[in-house]
């Protein structure tokens, strides 16, 4: 059941999006997120959906694969849509019991849904098309200036990359532990909240023990391969901005300008 989480997993490919410099993609993602919050009418939202669709097509990551990533946040999505739908004042269209649906509510719920879906798809598109190591590089080099104010950029980037590598391993392990304890009669499905939280102990303790064991092993393996922090490291695939990156950045500014114009003027 936990294996369905595909959020953040690299999807191998050779598309133009895959080949973009991770810094370009990071910047694009950031600007895209900003644009989603700037947009406040259907034209601007339409433009951002179209832009995302274009990039998804260019990336050749199958759309069904992208949708699986949404599954993990489906609950949050539904809750926020419902909140907007029922709790917005305005012209009442339908009302029953204490609930009323307003025209403004529908509008906001739809916008909220579009915004969230675009946000998640946009952000996950970056991790789908960028290997964690490239991402690490991108963060390290793109945010390198933060080192000046003593932010351990390299360490943060390395931790992220390792976390991404171990997510599938630990989810598989979690699955196995749940099965093993279920085989010992553990009941994880019934009872009230407290009872169920208590029932998680036999799952969580082995998971933590295993995570710590793996962390210890990994630290040793890294040391054995001469890891000693970011100092003096070189790269097999050093980042270099190519023509396509500059083109992507120009398009990005055009897009951002377009969204602002659409939002302000219309």
């Amino acid at each position, binding site marked *: 059941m936990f*294996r*369905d989480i*595909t959020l953040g*997993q690299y999807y191998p490919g050779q598309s133009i999006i895959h080949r973009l410099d991770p810094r370009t993609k990071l910047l694009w993602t950031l600007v895209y997120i900003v644009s989603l919050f700037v947009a406040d009418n259907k034209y601007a939202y339409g433009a951002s959906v179209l832009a995302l669709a274009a990039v998804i097509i260019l990336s050749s990551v199958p759309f069904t*694969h992208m949708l*699986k990533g949404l599954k993990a946040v489906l609950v949050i999505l539904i809750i926020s849509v419902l909140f907007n739908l029922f709790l917005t004042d305005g012209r009442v269209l339908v009302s029953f019991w204490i609930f009323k649906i307003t025209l403004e509510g529908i509008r906001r719920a739809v916008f909220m849904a579009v915004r969230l879906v675009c946000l998640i798809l946009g952000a996950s598109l970056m991790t789908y098309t960028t290997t964690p190591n490239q991402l690490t590089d991108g963060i390290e080099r793109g945010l390198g200036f933060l080192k000046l104010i003593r932010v351990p950029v390299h360490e943060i980037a390395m931790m992220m990359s390792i976390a991404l590598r171990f997510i*599938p391993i630990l*989810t*598989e392990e979690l699955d*196995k*532990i749940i*099965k*093993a*304890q*279920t*085989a*010992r*009669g*553990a*009941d994880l499905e019934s009872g009230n909240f407290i009872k169920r939280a208590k029932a998680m*102990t*036999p799952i969580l*303790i*082995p998971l933590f*023990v*295993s995570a710590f064991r793996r962390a210890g092993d990994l630290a040793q393996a890294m040391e054995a391969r001469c890891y000693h922090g970011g100092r003096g490291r070189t790269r097999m695939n050093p980042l270099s901005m190519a023509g396509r990156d500059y083109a992507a950045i120009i398009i990005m500014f055009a897009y951002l300008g377009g969204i602002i114009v659409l939002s302000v003027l219309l």
Partner: protein
Amino acid sequence: MSIEIKNLSYTYNNPGSENGSRFVLKNISATIKKDEITAIIGPTGSGKSTLVQHLNLLLHASEGDILYDGRSIYGDDFDRKTLRASVGLVFQYPEYQLFENDIFTDVCFGPKNLGLEKDEVESRAKKALLAVGFSDSDFSRSPFELSGGQRRRAAIAGVLAMQPEYLVLDEPAAGLDPKGRRELFQMLRRLHDENGVGIVLVSHSMDDVADFAGKILVLNDGRVIFDDTPERIFSHGEELRTVGLDVPQAARLAEILREYGFDLPQGLITMDRLRTAITDCFNRGDK
């Protein structure tokens, strides 16, 4: 007393797994008898682990049926909890599921889940720990103080304390050193012979199962390719090798000796039998 697997098929979608999207068990039929140790062998990815997870309803067959003493485990009147207690499943590397501060409390987890009285829970835990070779003085030890082999046995006790009719073990000897392996198999043999527990064992090691099992199921690519006694299965050396398996070392030596013109009987799958056969062969020559 038996578990009957009837035309069982299983399909699942698994995006994160090794070989892409689906893995399948195809039309598996077999009978597991309680009074006979059954081994399931097959290369990695052949579906062994998937199959055993069906035996106590951790996985649900897409098609087909499993009969426990003649009754379908998928029937509405069949209690899932009873089945999980009757068919104890020990996963690979089970020691990683230990979670309590001492092994006694950990072993109590299973029987406690069955809703038994405290006295009964503790007496079962005690019996189980003694059965796997611990003594009273070990009960309060933390799993972290134990050796790998001991931890493994404590984990097996955790399942045994539910007093299952069958104990199903997935690669129980994986990663143990020779001494740990030997102790483990002796213990399983004792559980079967003395306590009457039915044993089903998933294994990679031909030498282990030749000595141990009364019957072997060989799986490949989700299908049963052999279902027979070890003697007969290990006479198919060529076929086993084509699917990435092999015969026990004794059977291998017997194969070579036959090529060399030795007149040896069939079914020489253990070192004991081979030794007798070879000495017989030479004694006959003397006469």
